[in-house]
């Protein structure tokens, strides 16, 4: 390979490799150790760089970009603090299986290990929070490593990778190897096709089910649009009830007749009861997380379990399953659908009659019900109105972490996959605003709403500046209750109502804050005005911070309290009066 066309500097190689991997946008922040790459960015037009205001924002923006498009998100950070600030989004992407490539600058190879200015052991620090990472020591290997980084990030169970590029490598001249010609790591070859014997056994088991349930997760969304289509087809064919984890919302439409709502700690009564009482559970691209299972030794005690997952370590990790199927969701579902269609004798409708009646009974319990109010905006009501008013549009929703996140999951109906971006595994407060920015970059004409809490939004509020710079009209809808609501809820439930540090004493004026950034600030504390104001917010073509003052003491129910099983949920009508009445004493009421 002496072709002079393929000779270039390391920094040029980075840009060329990104372009050849289909990258159009990168999110980053410059610094000393990445200046050569920034110089190349300056001299080209194929890739747009979005300047964030903190590296954590770059990571979450890339996550939002990736989750809403199915493409790989790319972030670019400098050495030292740039890399350490990237750790939170990397771990977030690892836990939620988001394909992310992080390019980080590093001090020159000759200075590595000398405690140089802005040096840190980036590959050491990011090793446990990435799927894989590399320190590039030879400019001739740089292109191959970047191609491999993209392959590893987006295949198998997707995840974040880091390519750490020392500054002297960025300056050095070497050979660019195009994708497809670079060596691939043979030890990494994820299996897409499920074992046919296991799939056959699964279909046979499903056909005998009297009380079946489909339990789906983020893996369906990650597997691509075809997986969601096949899932819908499977539900149509089998008429099985279906629930989903927080991460999988939208894979099956919330308006679908078999939809049970989200399951888990704040999931619906019908979903959790169905999980507890089922005789056949089909877990599709979910991982039996502790927020889902409740008390593990009381989890769905009488069911036989089928688990489809691309990650072998997810199978039998928390819950033993009877039929594990290792493979890609779409590929396996295609087989399942085909085999189900070919069944010589389909199960009679009467086989699941009692089950459907049970589910109707549980549904009738209306576990998401709340007491409406004419005086204050109930947070659930605010989400309901937001949902109603954004219907019919191409809407994407991101969230921060806390009560507002759970209410958004409960009350905002998602009809399509890739429309819902939230930090599920890591639970990163501050995720929503930068993620919304990433989504808006990918979908400039869409309505992008960050459903936020008053505490979470302050964790990455600096990205308002980024939204303004790039004319990204994200809508930040703050359910402002002046508390870290979920922290307070746990303190009420588990710590004798001692509200240690969960009240926000010094709240910024969010309207003025929006204006300070050059955005539009809105305020609403009256349920009668809410619809009009939401309409106004949606119509604004600029970023908006909407300070929606909601009932301060509302709590998020239903809830599986700690140490309890799915059939021991705390329902809103059993919980609100007593729990909230005893929750706040006279002194506390003066505060709110």
């Amino acid at each position, binding site marked *: 390979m002496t072709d002079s066309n393929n000779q270039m500097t390391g920094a040029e190689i980075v840009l060329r490799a990104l372009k050849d991997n289909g990258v159009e946008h990168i999110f980053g922040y410059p610094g000393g150790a990445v200046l050569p790459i920034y110089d190349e960015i300056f001299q080209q037009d194929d890739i747009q760089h979005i300047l964030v205001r903190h590296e954590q924002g770059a990571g979450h923006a890339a996550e939002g970009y990736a989750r809403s498009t199915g493409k790989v998100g790319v972030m670019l950070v400098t050495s030292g603090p740039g890399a350490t600030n990237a750790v939170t989004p990397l771990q977030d992407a690892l836990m939620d299986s988001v394909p992310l490539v992080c390019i980080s600058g590093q001090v020159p190879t000759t200075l590595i290990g000398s405690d140089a200015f802005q040096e840190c052991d980036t590959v050491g620090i990011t090793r446990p929070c990435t799927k894989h990472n590399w320190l590039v020591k030879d400019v001739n290997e740089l292109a191959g490593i970047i191609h491999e980084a993209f392959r590893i990030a987006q295949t198998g169970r997707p995840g974040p990778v880091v390519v750490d590029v020392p500054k002297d490598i960025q300056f050095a001249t070497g050979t660019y190897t195009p994708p497809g010609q670079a060596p691939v790591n043979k030890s990494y070859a994820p299996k897409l096709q499920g074992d046919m014997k296991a799939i056959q056994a699964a279909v046979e088991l499903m056909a005998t089910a009297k009380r079946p349930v489909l339990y789906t997760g983020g893996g369906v969304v990650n597997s691509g649009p075809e997986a969601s289509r096949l899932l819908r087809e499977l539900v149509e064919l089998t008429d099985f009830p279906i629930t989903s984890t927080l991460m999988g919302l939208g894979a099956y439409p919330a308006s679908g007749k078999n939809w049970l709502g989200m399951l888990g700690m704040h999931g619906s009564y019908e979903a959790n009861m169905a999980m507890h009482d089922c005789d056949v559970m089909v877990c599709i691209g979910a991982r039996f997380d502790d927020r889902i299972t409740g008390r593990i030794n009381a989890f769905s005690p009488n069911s036989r379990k089928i688990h489809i997952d691309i990650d072998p370590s997810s199978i*039998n990790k928390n819950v033993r399953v009877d039929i594990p199927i290792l493979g890609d969701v779409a590929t396996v579902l295609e087989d399942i659908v085909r085999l189900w269609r070919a069944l010589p004798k389909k199960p009679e409708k009467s086989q699941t009659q009692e089950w459907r009646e049970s589910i109707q009974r549980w549904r009738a319990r209306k576990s998401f019900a709340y007491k409406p109010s004419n005086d204050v905006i109930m947070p659930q009501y605010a989400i309901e109105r937001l949902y109603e008013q954004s219907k019919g549009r191409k809407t994407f929703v991101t969230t921060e972490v806390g009560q507002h996140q759970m209410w958004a999951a409960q009350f905002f109906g998602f009809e399509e996959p890739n429309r819902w971006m939230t930090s599920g595994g890591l639970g990163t407060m501050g995720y929503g605003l930068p993620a919304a920015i990433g989504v808006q970059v990918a979908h400039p004409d869409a309505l992008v709403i960050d459903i936020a809490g008053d505490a979470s939004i302050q964790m990455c509020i600096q990205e308002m500046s980024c939204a303004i710079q790039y004319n990204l009209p994200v809508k930040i809808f703050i359910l402002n209750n002046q508390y870290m609501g979920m922290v307070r809820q746990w303190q009420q439930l*588990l710590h004798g109502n001692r509200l240690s540090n969960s009240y926000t004493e010094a709240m910024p004026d969010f309207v003025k804050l929006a204006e300070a950034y050059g955005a539009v600030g809105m305020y609403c504390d009256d349920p009668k005005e809410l619809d009009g104001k939401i309409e106004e917010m949606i119509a604004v073509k600029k970023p908006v911070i909407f300070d929606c003052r909601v009932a301060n003491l509302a709590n998020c129910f239903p809830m599986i309290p700690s140490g309890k099983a799915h059939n021991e949920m705390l329902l809103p009508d059993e919980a609100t009066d007593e729990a909230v009445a005893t929750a706040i004493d006279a002194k506390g009421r003066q505060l709110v």
Partner: protein
Amino acid sequence: MNAHQQATGSAYFIAPETAKVENHTLSVLVNNEPGVLARVIGLFSGRGYNIESLTVSETEHEAHLSRITIVTRGTPSVLEQIKAQLERIVPVHRVVDLTVRAKDLGQERPIEREVALIKVVGSGEHRAETLRLADAFQAKVVDATVEHFVLEITGKSSKIDQFVAILKPLGLIEICRTGIAAMNRGPQGM
């Protein structure tokens, strides 16, 4: 039904582990590349698994492959999880649980051997006794002066433990052990 009346004030579901703990020997075939050992060790410390013994060396120079032998402890489900987690590491080619494999082959255990170098300092009758024991345990003298011996012994860990225990009163001052190298019996490869 009231969660706040519960004894356990935890946000997590804590269940005591009741299954029996076993010792297993794993063979891990990896790319010989920078950081690969750190990935393996980091996995064990990060996920709270135990390492009883660990050896690593390049086994196929041309193919850049190294073989890591790890003795670990855990319940059967934890051991299964360790294997799955190891397989997830990108430069890991294969993981074989030699202990499980031995059982599948109808054998009690895989072959497990360790080398130890042992320095004994002494004089008079102690020296003679040291040599007699070395002979009995088939240990070799690899270095000696009138004051000391360095002995090399190969065998199962239990044999080395025993040898070390016996030599202690005879002037043992230094031990170096390699950790366990292991493979399965029989004509089949890994």
